[in-house]
């Protein structure tokens, strides 16, 4: 059965050679290249003129860079978790979702990692964060979450690449055997490392893949803990809270599932993958979004409750600042965008409808950005001392860098969609085979 029209799974390996929506792809890629150019200009301006071109200053010295860092990193976590947890629980619906979700992770972690480096003031010295023998005989401060965070993001980035690549090796081999152009054969052949599908190779591959998946789950917890502790380990009112690691974890996967929903619906429509990303898959994404949304909502409630329960005047004042202060729009905006449209997902009809699901995903994506903004700015703009109060407004170049970073995410993601199999072909085939076996038995 080699007719592409008859086998939706086989279509996946044919998409790179015969792309179904070239015009739409070029328009999207053009836009993302323009954003990428904006990124380069913004970074150039930052490097030439220094962080003074940004709006962050004492007391709000973290600004949009760290807001976006947390936001992008959080989005990345969902890709790892959707892939690893659904693999370990043996959910076959995973196979249509994991590859592009992992690609989303890769590119959003790259975006996330760039923000704190650019925020350093002297980004070209970022390697001082790494422990290495140097003439100054200075070593990193390993009792600080800042040093933990460097390790967390770096290891998460490399770990995500390993996980994605390990899962893709057999598909690279299939692409090698499918491709007709010499260049594609050589490129995929090198990427496949000479994979030839021997039974014992598969057996060892499966052992390794399940192990890496099982290790990726605690890795995500470690990474969320490390950047949650960036906030929580200090004495800042509104930040110094034991719930932060769990709170950040839930928010991270919530925002990530929202982006998975947007990407799944878009790819399904653009590449005609309705037979593979079925209503059952959309239903699963909708359910995950709803569940993680309520976990995040619990985080909001617990955060407010612990502030009120603490009896600490500064904690309560920060809570009031969040609700009624200068940045109340970010708090109530986050609550509204995160939790109001979400309630529609109680209805199965909404969960399996692509457009409403994607719109709810978009709402949550924006809502979670507002949450990151709210958490960061309201914690800092009114500190312990009235003399150090101040208002923060992001400058043009901060917004330009943010917009440009969307290009840093989109451009490689579009290349992935265009040139690599967007789903795990061999796992879809394996699942279909096992389903048939079960039907026979």
């Amino acid at each position, binding site marked *: *059965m*080699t007719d592409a029209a008859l*086998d939706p*799974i*086989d279509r996946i*390996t044919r998409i790179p050679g015969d792309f179904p929506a070239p015009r739409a792809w070029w328009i999207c890629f053009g836009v993302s290249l323009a954003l990428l150019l904006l990124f380069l200009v913004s970074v150039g301006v930052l490097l030439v003129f220094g962080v003074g071109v940004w709006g962050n200053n004492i007391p709000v010295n973290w600004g949009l860079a760290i807001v976006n860092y947390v936001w992008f990193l959080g989005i990345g976590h969902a890709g790892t978790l959707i892939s690893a947890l659904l693999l370990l629980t043996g959910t076959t619906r995973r196979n249509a979702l994991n590859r592009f979700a992992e690609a989303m992770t890769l590119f959003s972690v790259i975006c996330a990692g760039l923000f704190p480096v650019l925020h350093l003031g002297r980004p070209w010295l970022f390697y001082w964060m790494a*422990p290495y023998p140097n003439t100054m*005989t*200075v*070593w*990193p*401060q*390993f*009792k600080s979450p800042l*040093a*933990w965070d460097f*390790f*967390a993001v770096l*290891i998460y980035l490399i*770990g995500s690449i*390993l996980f994605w690549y*390990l899962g893709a090796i*057999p598909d690279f*081999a*299939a*692409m090698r*055997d*499918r491709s007709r152009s010499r260049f594609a054969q050589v490129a995929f052949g090198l990427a496949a*490392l*000479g*994979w*030839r*599908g*021997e*039974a*014992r*190779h*598969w*057996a*060892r*591959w499966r*052992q*390794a893949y399940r*192990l*890496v998946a099982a*290790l*990726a789950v*605690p*890795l995500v917890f*470690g*990474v969320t*803990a*490390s950047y949650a*502790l960036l906030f929580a380990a200090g004495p800042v009112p509104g930040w110094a809270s034991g719930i932060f690691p769990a709170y950040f974890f839930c928010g991270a996967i919530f925002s990530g599932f929202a982006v998975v929903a947007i990407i799944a619906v878009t790819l399904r429509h653009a590449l005609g993958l309705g037979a593979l990303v079925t209503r059952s898959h959309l239903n699963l994404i909708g359910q995950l979004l709803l569940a993680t949304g309520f976990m995040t909502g619990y985080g909001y409630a617990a955060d407010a409750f612990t502030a009120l329960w603490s009896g600490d005047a500064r904690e309560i004042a920060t809570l009031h600042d969040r609700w009624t202060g200068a940045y109340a729009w970010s708090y109530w905006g986050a609550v509204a965008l995160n939790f109001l449209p979400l309630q529609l997902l109680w209805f199965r009809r909404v969960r399996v409808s692509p457009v409403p699901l994607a719109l709810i995903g978009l709402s949550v994506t924006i809502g979670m950005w507002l949450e990151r903004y709210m958490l960061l700015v309201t914690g800092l703009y009114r500190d312990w001392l009235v003399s150090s109060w101040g208002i923060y407004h992001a400058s043009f170049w901060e917004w330009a860098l943010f917009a440009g970073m969307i290009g840093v995410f989109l451009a490689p993601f579009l290349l992935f969609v265009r040139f690599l199999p967007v789903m795990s072909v*061999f*796992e879809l*085939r*394996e699942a279909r*085979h*096992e389903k048939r076996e079960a039907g026979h038995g």
Partner: protein
Amino acid sequence: MADLLLEYDDPDRLMAAARRLREAERRFEAITPYPLEGLAELTGFAEAHVPKLALAGGVLGAVLGFGGQVATNLLYPIDVGGRPPVAWQGFALVTALIAIFTAMLFALGGMLALNRLPKLRHPVFDDPRMSLAEPDRFFLLIPEGEREGLPELDPRRAAEVPR
């Protein structure tokens, strides 16, 4: 003489042939576009080296990660709030992260090394029908020395693979 490559269009028929080869105590390899449950065991696969290597990698990473943090703190003690240089609680997270990382590396590297990959040249690639892109091509590869007196294997096609 050369190795024998047998092609099947159906996983069940390949599994049946593999079982017959197993009963006849032959050495052979199976090549499939996706993993088939139980096939590796029929080819005589019974090992757990990859998980053991990953465990070794994790332990190595934990020791190096923790030891590295202790060493840097002794080399350059930073006194913040009177905390001792070796504050193991503070080192836990980075130790765990590095252990996870090295375990992942050892799992991936161990899988590749045990599979003797990367290996871009292999005789089966010379067969014109060899392809992992087709969902209906399954192969058995029987080495030269095992070809005498084979049981009935009923392939769709048989080919020679010169070494």
